[in-house]
């Protein structure tokens, strides 16, 4: 089959590799019909995530048709059309039972590698996201092996198009969880979203669905701010005005009741240069590593929530804890517990509350992946979200 392969830092290729096979009786095989490039894939491309190996298959946003199931798979059936959460969860451990699927105890075979990096604990496995997260082959390919087939894959109705449900795999639930973590009081609370990339777009629209009185989206790229504005958000271009003053003006001097940091830095223990790169790639907000988080803390209203879907991976320096303490802020963060949002967000899509395909700017063949990784990373051609067809 064809698959998008990590060939070393800065080198993404499309190669012919052996078809995947079932490795365990609880696995399923999926024929991928649509897959997307995530902002976090760009960090893999640039080699800032440790433990990648040449030949690793990339991709954690994918959907398709079930073509084979292992003998211990009870619910999933061949022929079903499914979206697959980007995180891999066993469904049986204590975190999974509590709905904390991204913190699964059992799905990461390389847990000790992650424990060595973080000191004590590790999250669950991820598709196509380094050996630190389990070394599972990704889904930017024609076929993919899906472990825990009765836990992750979510059957979608035939009536809806791939593009409407594909982002249930990651960025829609990620933005939604970020908004949900704010505990928005409908009709009253103002929510600010730093970063108007795909996750920021979904966070802003989710905040509106949850009843935010007003949503303010902050970025510097006009096309991203325009997309947010089309969704009903106020916008603030921090290159044109001072962020903190701008937010004060837009909130009667109180500051936003909740602030979502959809920027993050996703640096897993490497040098300052790599950290700065990570922020530049994902956030387009700053050359300073935690400027978005710092602004979030400084701007947030008293007793508000700083919600962080943006990924933090290393150690944070110069964080304004005094301001956070003085205002009594609440911090909510973490990888998305994707599994728990599949059903409710599918219902939102079916009800017409949202059509997630609004975020797509580029559609291409899998063969074009290397070029589009580049385009996406370099913000060329107003690129916000790329969807690939493995069979075109």
């Amino acid at each position, binding site marked *: 089959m064809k698959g998008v392969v990590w060939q070393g830092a800065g080198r993404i290729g499309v190669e012919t590799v*052996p078809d995947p*096979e079932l490795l365990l*009786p609880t696995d399923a095989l999926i024929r991928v019909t649509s897959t997307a490039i995530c902002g976090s894939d760009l960090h893999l491309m640039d080699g800032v995530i440790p433990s990648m*190996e040449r030949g690793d298959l990339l991709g954690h946003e994918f959907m398709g048709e079930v073509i084979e199931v292992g003998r211990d798979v009870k619910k999933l059936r061949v022929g079903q059309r499914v979206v697959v959460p980007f995180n891999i969860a*066993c469904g049986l*451990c*204590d975190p999974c039972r509590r709905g904390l699927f991204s913190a699964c105890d*059992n799905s990461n*075979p390389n847990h000790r590698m992650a424990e060595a990096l973080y000191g004590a604990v590790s999250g669950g496995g991820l598709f196509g996201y380094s050996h630190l997260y389990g070394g599972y*082959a990704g889904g930017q390919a024609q076929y993919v092996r899906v472990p825990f087939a009765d836990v992750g894959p979510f059957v979608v109705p035939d009536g809806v198009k791939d593009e409407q449900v594909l982002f249930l795999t990651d960025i829609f639930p990620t933005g939604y969880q970020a908004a949900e973590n704010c505990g928005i009081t409908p009709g009253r609370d103002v929510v600010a979203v730093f970063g108007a990339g795909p996750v920021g777009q979904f966070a802003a629209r989710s905040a509106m669905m949850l009843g935010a009185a007003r949503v303010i989206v902050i970025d510097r790229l006009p096309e991203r701010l325009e997309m947010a504005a089309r969704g009903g958000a106020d916008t603030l271009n921090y290159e044109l005005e001072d962020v903190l003053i701008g937010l004060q003006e837009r909130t009667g001097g109180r500051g936003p009741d909740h602030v979502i940091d959809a920027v993050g830095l996703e640096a897993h223990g490497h040098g300052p240069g790599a950290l700065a790169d990570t922020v530049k790639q994902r956030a387009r907000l700053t050359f300073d590593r935690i400027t978005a988080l710092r602004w979030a803390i400084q701007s947030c209203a008293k007793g508000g929530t700083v919600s962080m879907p943006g990924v933090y991976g290393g150690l944070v320096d110069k964080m304004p804890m005094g301001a956070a303490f003085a205002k009594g802020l609440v911090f909510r963060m973490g990888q998305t517990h994707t599994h728990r949002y599949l059903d409710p967000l599918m219902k939102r899509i079916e009800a017409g509350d949202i059509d997630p395909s609004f975020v797509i700017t580029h559609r291409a063949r899998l063969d074009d992946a290397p070029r589009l990784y580049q385009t996406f990373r370099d913000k060329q051609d107003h690129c916000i979200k790329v969807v690939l067809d493995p069979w075109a």
Partner: protein
Amino acid sequence: MTGGNRVRAGGVEAPQVRSSLPPNPLNRPAISSGPERAVWGALAAGVGTLAFGRRHGPLARVALLALGGGLVTLAATGRNPLYDALKLRQNDAGEILVREAVTVGRPPHEVYARWRDLSRLPDFMEMLERIEVLHGTRSRWTVRGPAGPLTFEAELTADEPGQRIAWRTVPGPGVQHHGEVTFRPAPGDRGTEVLARYGYAPPGGPAGAAIARILNHEPGQRTRDDLMRLKRIMELGFIPTAKGQTSGRGVRAGKV
């Protein structure tokens, strides 16, 4: 002396464990015996003299002073900073101590029963090739070593159903060790807290343990993986893996 790598023999920090490890059957010297400390002291003096010589720049001088300081610490306290760095713990008898804990989402009697079935320990203990149960409380263990399999005999020294199992090796060839594992209910219906503790006299003494650690062949490093495999076997019935999957690396590894 505070914290660090030297804990009291038996290393009982958790008061819930009713009994400490059995007394060390061997009589290995502690890491820094008198003569050993004298050697470190002499080395420290030498390095210190070098540091105050005229031929070194400021950076070299700082480095030499730091090295001398480390050697002085070794000589004075008997503590080995290398052990701290490598997270090796040792008791007064010179044994390396291993402690690892995991919570398994099954009741204590089930987890105990899985462990008590000694012949199945190799399912989750990576270094064990096999265990043959002999008679009574005796068993014969075959362990994967860096230089081929090692065989020795062990005997149970405690067996409290649902709560605790302890064992020690029978004096003879092979790595001498003793250990115990305790099982107690986790609060809030979360299953069982499993605490495994081993003490062993490393072949080649403390230096051997340090080298094994660096080579990723020290039993303490394996214990964490072993307990996670136990947890996964008990909670899932299998051990998740990505080994053998497809990749662009050409040759496909064997199926697991």
